[in-house]
């Protein structure tokens, strides 16, 4: 099993963050919607600290997933267990609005762009790792 280190987990956190921020953007006009985000540093630190060999099989399994304790469904458990246990948090609104919506579109767009850049950076790191592995394999 090749190891891509922390970048593998970083990709997951960044994908998750993309989803959250796009949800914020989608609900920019929904009255009462509270913008959410995750603390990237905290989640990643949490993920990096967890031992990947010591997967807790019941950690992140959705309640409605059937038979998650049985052996033939074990792959669900492993797939859904990343050691990434941190909840999303609500954003502190910079300027209150009349309808209790806390989405600041310009801020969300900036966060989205930043997250995209981080995602690309992570992909570049992984690509570099793969290339160095390929070089070692070829023995050039």
């Amino acid at each position, binding site marked *: 099993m090749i190891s891509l280190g922390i970048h593998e987990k970083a990709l997951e956190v960044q994908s998750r963050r993309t989803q959250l921020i796009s949800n914020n953007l989608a609900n920019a006009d929904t009255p009462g919607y509270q913008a959410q985000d995750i603390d990237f540093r905290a989640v990643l630190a949490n993920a990096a600290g967890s031992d990947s060999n010591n997967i807790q099989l019941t950690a992140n399994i959705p309640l409605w997933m059937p038979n998650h304790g049985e052996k033939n469904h074990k792959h669900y458990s492993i797939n859904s267990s990343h050691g990434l246990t941190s909840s999303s948090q609500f954003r502190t609104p910079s300027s209150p609005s009349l309808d209790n919506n806390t989405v600041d579109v310009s801020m969300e767009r900036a966060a*989205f762009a930043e997250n995209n850049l981080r995602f690309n950076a992570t992909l570049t790191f992984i690509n570099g790792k793969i290339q160095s592995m390929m070089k070692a394999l070829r023995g050039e």
Partner: protein
Amino acid sequence: MSLFSVFDITGSAMSAQSVRMNLTASNIANAQSLSSSDGEVYQARHPIFVAKDSDFSQSLSSEMNMFSGNANGAGVEVREIVESQRSGELRYEPDHPMADEKGYVQYPNVNIMEEMANMISASRSFQTNVDALETTTQMMERLLALGKG
């Protein structure tokens, strides 16, 4: 992979904004209509946006569904379309065929300024979601090309 759900999220938002745009167009088009199909005067229509699964995600601990695909929040939906109950404008036009016995004609309660502002807001929100979708597509393309150099 949670990136796929971005398509659902932004798609639902674009669809909701289209509904809003449609209603705005209808309101502007009927700003001077003296009678709608049911005989009453036309009333401005507005959509009610609701965040999908909002109650669900708040009640369920987010630790539990954090990384399981369609986790908390999955876009926006138009729950209903309401007619504005604001009273419309009464104009004194005694020669008008639809005037009442005192000579007043009931005009729709459409506020053109409000509708224009709504239209611009809907258009901007739509654009934002298209941009988010494009960016996500690029991210996924790069992800697919992983390891190719």
